[in-house]
């Protein structure tokens, strides 16, 4: 697998303003993202997650450090605006509020909006829009009015818009935060399908630990730095440091942790409800790991 994004020693501070000192939002952040991977980014409010997303989309220019896209350094001195515009077309972003990212009065026109701005021929747009709506499961709503859709459906329309523009990398910035459980599930299912079936590289910023547990990898941000970087099993397997950083772990892990305190020899990195119950039942019934 090849590398899509690499950042080296990224630093970014929000500029000082009327006596408020400059706020460092990213401090020496380095990592790389493989093509086709699914990475969740966790961290409390103000930990630098959204700033990181803005730097990756090239909306914010880092103060220092390097950003590479497909091996090409986007922070190099000889990079032109045209290069950046071209690079931005690789990365799509879906934001938190569904109502802030819909522009048209008909669903299919909204999905087509980005493509139209790119000057793509109209028969090609037609084909892409149909395909994108199919992928997010919204084909039957193509002629509907977006404002009458549910939050989850609106977010799927926003996702379709980025797919129609052939974005290879999609960053979801708390895209499920404003949705109800059903809407959240719809969007999560769409994200997973995009990643597994269509090979889209996904970066997902979230506050929901259960959603993060579905990713291949989790990066935990704390005070502008990377606190942890590993598989969900590794990251949630050490709940103490997550709690120290003001974060949670899935309730399954929390319960398994309590079982360990009771002396049972159980793993912590189980996120599936049934599997967690099976392990606890076995340990309790057999009194495993206890004398």
């Amino acid at each position, binding site marked *: 697998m090849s590398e899509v994004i690499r950042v080296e020693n990224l630093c970014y501070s929000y500029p000082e303003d009327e006596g408020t000192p400059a706020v460092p939002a990213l401090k020496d952040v380095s990592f790389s993202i493989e093509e086709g991977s699914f990475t969740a980014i966790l961290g*409390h*409010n103000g930990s630098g997650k959204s700033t990181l997303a803005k730097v990756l989309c090239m909306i914010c220019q880092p103060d220092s450090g390097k950003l590479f896209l497909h091996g090409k350094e986007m922070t190099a001195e000889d990079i032109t605006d045209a290069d950046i515009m071209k690079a931005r077309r690789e990365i799509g972003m879906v934001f938190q509020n569904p109502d802030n990212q819909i522009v048209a009065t008909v669903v299919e026109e909204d999905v087509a909006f980005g493509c139209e701005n790119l000057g793509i021929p109209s028969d090609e747009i037609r084909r892409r829009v149909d395909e994108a709506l199919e992928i997010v499961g919204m084909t039957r709503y193509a002629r509907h009015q977006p404002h009458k859709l549910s939050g989850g459906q609106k977010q799927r329309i926003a996702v379709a818009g980025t797919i129609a523009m052939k974005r290879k990398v999609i960053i979801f910035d708390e895209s499920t935060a404003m949705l109800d*459980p059903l809407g959240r599930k719809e969007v999560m299912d769409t994200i997973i399908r995009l990643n597994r079936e269509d090979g889209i590289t996904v970066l997902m910023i979230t506050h929901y630990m259960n959603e993060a547990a579905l990713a291949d990898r989790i990066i935990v941000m704390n005070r502008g730095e990377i606190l942890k970087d590993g598989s969900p099993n590794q990251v949630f397997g050490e709940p103490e440091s997550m709690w120290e950083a003001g974060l949670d772990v899935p309730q*399954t892990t929390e319960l398994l942790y309590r079982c360990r305190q*009771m002396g049972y020899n159980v793993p912590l990195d189980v996120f599936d409800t049934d599997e967690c119950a*099976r392990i*606890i039942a076995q340990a309790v019934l057999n009194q495993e790991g206890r004398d």
Partner: protein
Amino acid sequence: MTVAGVELKNVTYIYNKGTPYEAKALDNISLQIPGTRITGLIGHTGSGKSTMMQLINGLLKPTSGEVCIDGRNIWDEPKKIREIRFKAGLVMQYPEHQLFAETVEEDIAYGPKNMGLSGEELHKRILDAAAFSGLDPALLPKSPFELSGGQKRRVALAGVIAMKPQILILDEPAAGLDPGGRREILGGVKRYARESGTNVIIVSHSMEDMALYCDDLAVMSAGKILMYDTCAAVFSRAEEMLAVGLDVPQVTGVAFALAKHGVDIGKDVYTVDWAADKLAEFGKTIRTEDKINI
């Protein structure tokens, strides 16, 4: 302060009545919410939660039926409906989008000033409200727009608390906050409810949060009240909750699955602490049985 009870008697609400877009949001609902409890209102989008909140606050008038506060129909004297809005304070979703004043203090003062308060009493209310919402008094002279999202949310909450409503209705008060922020806001609301004796109604999609901070839950589906009971009783009916597209806390799901695997710790377990206690008890029983068998 008296503790206000809310009662809905056969309330029906129809949007756009008499037009082709007519939609029944609430269907003959009767519900009595006693004043001393924190009640969670749950239901998926379109189940009628928001309509119900706006009816209690007097923003909407029922198509039929009565909304009573302290035993009185709030629409008995339509001209006095403004008083009801002071009595039942509504904190909407993402209330930080509604901040407008030049300083935090002025923003919090807006509601109580409109009630006719001034001077010492007004100042005291602002300070009390700020304290309950977890706002540092040093922030009062600042512009609310300089604050972080979580702090702005607290300013908006303080603005409603400063009116000392007898009923405090909160729509998704913790949405979009990280786990620490959720705990601070919801913990603050719970402490406020207990200390001031305010009747609190919280709308949220997070079952884990509801389990931790509410006493009772009212579950809505398709404009009707499906269940209204204590958290434990509601979550023990997990199958019904899932059938109407709602979740139960993950740990309740584990408790259900544990029963299938022969470790029955009850189906009404809805916090990790509770589950851990029950498991410890269960383990003890097994060890005692083993000893007897030996």
